[in-house]
């Protein structure tokens, strides 16, 4: 079948428009981060001179002096802990929902959906007060707990959709061979479910990595402040310089690895984001 050149031209324009739309803010951040401090205000999209001073200043002084290293470590550890705990708990629940018959199944799914709609700001005040009483304010655990709550619905829905696709006859075969339900789960199903769990893990990690509201509300120092929150507190070299360059450099450092990761696992992410979106 022959396609008109006009059709090709239209699609090309559409695709280029989508590409520009997606890429401009990222390229712009990279551009700002590479400008020498005195060129930040030149307003050029492509830097005329490249310098790595902004990156150097981020890491200057090691962990004690740098405004960036500790928050980066906090972000990585908090997001990873949230991911591991969330996936373990969500896997248990998703297994029960996809596989077992029990009253309350629909209630749990509906409840998870309700929590996905819940406004986080409504919990910030009570958590602030409770965490100060319980000693969880400005700690890793104080952030991991709310992240867990708000990532579980995402993880449960994603995993239920994946678990329903698993060939369960294998589990029955294992049970016929004398395995307990728990053994059938850990020895047969977990290896089969690993790809789905990995996908859910990416989504949960991105969620925890992205949070800002809890991070500025429930932390007060670099003891547990994550990168998004610390960016809001960045200051310039002196009180007269804007921290634009260092914010841009920090933003690039926390963005580029995630983008590479997202692009590498794009198929999984798309299937995870849309899993169960449409009954088909």
């Amino acid at each position, binding site marked *: 079948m022959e396609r008109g050149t006009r059709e*090709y031209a239209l*699609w090309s324009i*559409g*695709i280029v428009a*989508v590409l520009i*739309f997606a890429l401009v*803010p*990222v390229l*712009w*951040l990279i551009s700002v981060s590479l400008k020498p401090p005195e060129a930040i205000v030149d*307003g*050029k999209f492509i830097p005329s001179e490249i310098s790595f001073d902004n990156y150097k200043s981020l890491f200057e002084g090691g962990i004690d002096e740098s405004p960036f290293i500790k928050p980066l470590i906090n972000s990585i550890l908090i997001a990873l802990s949230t991911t591991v705990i969330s996936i373990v708990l969500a896997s*248990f*629940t998703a*297994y*029960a929902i996809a*596989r*077992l*018959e029990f*009253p309350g199944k629909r209630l749990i799914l509906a*409840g998870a*959906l309700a929590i*996905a*709609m*819940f*406004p*986080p*700001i*409504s*919990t910030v*005040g*009570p*958590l*602030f*007060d*409770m965490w100060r009483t319980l000693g969880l304010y400005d700690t890793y655990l104080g952030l991991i*707990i709310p992240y867990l*709550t708000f990532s579980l*619905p*995402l993880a449960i*829905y994603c995993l239920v959709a994946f678990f329903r696709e698993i060939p369960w006859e294998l589990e029955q075969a294992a049970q016929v061979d004398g395995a307990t*339900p*728990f053994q059938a789960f850990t020895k047969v199903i977990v290896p089969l479910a690993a790809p789905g769990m990995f996908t859910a893990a990416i989504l949960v990690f991105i969620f925890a*990595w*992205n949070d*800002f*509201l809890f991070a500025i*509300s429930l932390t007060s120092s670099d003891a547990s402040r994550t990168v*998004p929150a610390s*960016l*809001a507190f960045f200051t310039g070299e002196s009180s007269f310089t804007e921290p634009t360059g260092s*914010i*841009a450099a920090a933003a690039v450092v926390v963005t580029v690895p*995630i*983008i590479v990761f997202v692009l590498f696992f*794009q198929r999984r992410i798309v299937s995870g984001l*849309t899993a169960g*979106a*449409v009954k*088909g």
Partner: protein
Amino acid sequence: MEAHAQRQPAAVSQRTRSERRLAWMLCAPAVIAMLAVTAYPIGYAIVLSLQQVDLRFPDEGGFVGLDNYGAVLSSDLWWTDVFNTAFLTVTTVAIELVLGMVIALVMHRAIFGRGVVRTSVLIPYGIITVVAAFSWQFAFAPDSGFVNNLPLISDEMDWFGDRFSSFAVIIMAEVWKTTPFMALLLLAGLVTIDSQLYEAAKVDGATAWQRFTRITLPLMKPAILVALLFRTLDAFRVFDTIYIMTAGAQDTESVSILGFNQLISRLNLGLGSAVSVLIFFCVLAIAFVYVKGFGVRVEEGRPGR
């Protein structure tokens, strides 16, 4: 497709009981984790909202009934912020729906370059909202930004100096960040439409626009409504982008920023909790309108951000 379809009837009640017990044990940790940070705090927020609790004046306090709600509902700031939030929600979600549909159609129908589009569309999804907000803020800044150097735009334009130009930049950043999710949800709906319907319509002489409005839109209605529900609720809690770009200056505050300012900046837990509870009821009302008014079948939806 239901996994338990081929299961034997519950002849052995012992087995049924142990299955139930296992299921509840497996679900308990996640259910507790989800309730601990939602149900309990919202209850606690209601209790706080009925008291005078100001951490700067810990000695004063006590039950004040609905006084905090009266103070919030009679303040101009609350209603300005409700207007701002509703305005931002409606505009961002409307733009996202149109743009998301265009991108979904490009991904679905493109005769080449589908992979490139899908790849680039995932970039905004992977970026921290705060980072995206900084990028757009730097781009529109009068001194360091490139936007004012573009043709047709005045070099002197002070985007963050005026309410509605600030909104324009905020909307742009929000749309950029969240359209990919919308596009992917719509694409998932698009692929379920039988392509024979389009072929039949073509044979009958329907134009591309007719095919879109008579086949695509009606068949995608459930997917569109679910996507709209989730995006509306998500847009209603807009916080990160405004906090970074204007921090509420030029009357651009959202209700979430108001809640944060009262709770965390001013430590007025009583008044702030009243704001939080009111936001919670707004979200309930939006969900109610979608479910009862538009007939969204929520059980077919899914959470996501």
